[in-house]
């Protein structure tokens, strides 16, 4: 299959109010709050690439973008234990009608971060390999422009690379429909390990820290 471009516009939303369950000895608390990731594929009309100056439409200044087809995504902390690959439960639902921004508010969430992912997606059997870079709003340039434009907001805001060294993030993963499908999981595991061996020397694929892929709120608030 031919490689496809990756163009993902992501909003990361967190709850307005954090819920602090009363800690009682002998009682295991199962209530957890998750950050919500809302994603859509940005179109070329939303993007303006005059490298090094890249601009994109942001939901902050274009609320109509919320009417697009967005996918809501929750991710659990990756499974614990001694593993050769990372497995993570991800819950997804696509919203096809209505504006996603008020919807988030009704859910009790507020937007925290907005970022754009650009890159390429390759397919190897069932494995998806992504080479991506993350763009975030360039607030300095934006504020300077606002001053020049007498506070009239531009249609597209200036972006900058999150990682200014320009390196790409390489991710190889397999989507499994059900977390309980042990056969599919182990098959995906072997396929990924094979790929790791195949790409050794070209890309040294390694497992990331489990804590860094945790999409829950509780662990975030513990961190300074």
């Amino acid at each position, binding site marked *: 299959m031919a490689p496809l471009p990756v163009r993902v516009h992501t909003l990361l939303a967190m709850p307005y109010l954090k819920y602090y369950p009363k800690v009682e000895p002998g009682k295991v608390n199962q209530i957890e709050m998750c*950050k919500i990731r809302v994603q859509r594929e940005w179109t070329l009309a939303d993007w303006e690439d005059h490298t090094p100056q890249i601009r994109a439409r942001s939901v902050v200044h274009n609320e109509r973008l919320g009417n697009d087809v967005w996918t809501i995504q929750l991710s659990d902390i990756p499974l614990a234990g001694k593993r050769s690959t990372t497995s993570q439960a991800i819950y997804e639902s696509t919203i096809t009608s209505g504006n996603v921004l008020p919807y988030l508010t009704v859910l009790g969430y507020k937007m925290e971060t907005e*970022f754009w992912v650009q890159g390429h997606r390759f397919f190897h*059997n069932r494995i998806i390999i992504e080479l991506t870079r*993350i763009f*975030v709003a360039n607030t300095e340039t934006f504020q300077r422009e606002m001053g020049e434009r007498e506070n009239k907001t531009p249609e597209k805001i200036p972006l900058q690379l999150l990682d200014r060294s320009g390196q790409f*993030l390489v991710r190889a993963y397999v989507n499994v429909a059900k977390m309980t499908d042990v056969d599919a999981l182990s098959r995906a595991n072997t396929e990924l390990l094979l790929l790791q061996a195949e790409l050794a020397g070209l890309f040294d694929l390694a497992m*990331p*820290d489990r804590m860094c892929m945790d999409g829950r709120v509780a662990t975030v608030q513990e961190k300074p």
Partner: protein
Amino acid sequence: MSSILQRALGNNRHNNSNGSSMNNLKDTTTLASNHVDVALIPVEPLESLRTRLSQLTQSLAKLLDSLNSPSNNPNPADPTQPSRLPHFVSLQNQYNVINNQLVSIVQSLEAHQSVLLTHDAFPLPKFPTTKEQNLVTTLLRKKTVPEVVDWVNESMQLVDEQIRSNPASGNVTSLNDKFVDWCVQSMTEERDNYEFHGFQTMAELRDINNGASDNDVDMTKEEDEKAKRKEEELKKLAMSVNELLKFIYQGVDPRVLNQA
């Protein structure tokens, strides 16, 4: 290339004559280049499939035989009478055997999935193998066709005779050799134009070469240091995978953390 195809076809002919549908699976070969690397042929998966498939055809043929057997006919005098089924115990046994063989084929297919998916089988499934058997054998022939051998011998003789009758015409062959040399040389040149090695572009390679030939050593040194400094700066800026993932999943901006 033709040699592998010939080999695979040879196997077919030796091992079964009625399994034309299976040829397609067995004739899997690698089409790498004119020069055949025998080590690239996935012999092991093909062989394991071949034995299993030939077992299956044998059992199927046996089942068909027992169904068509004249001993099942209640009225041997009238062959148009529908024949009776064999005893159910024997049917069930054969069914079990075939079932097991199918399972084993599926397992073998699954185990060698990646190899089989990335290789082409000749002749292709659509090719009418039985109808065009002569054509297939001709196409997959390893040896030269007798006609061609005759042609080659004829022209060799012709050249020999010419040289013998007129020694001066030996120049023709040397001219020919020159032409062959030129062909080979231009072919390798053309190939080099389209074969790429390493991770640098032509412009970068040119820069490197220029840098090396530059007499002004101080300049290159300075440039080197500049490049090194730039690289180090970029390295300092580079974020780890974990930092990037933390941003994606938790929105924790590594730039803010680094400042603090």
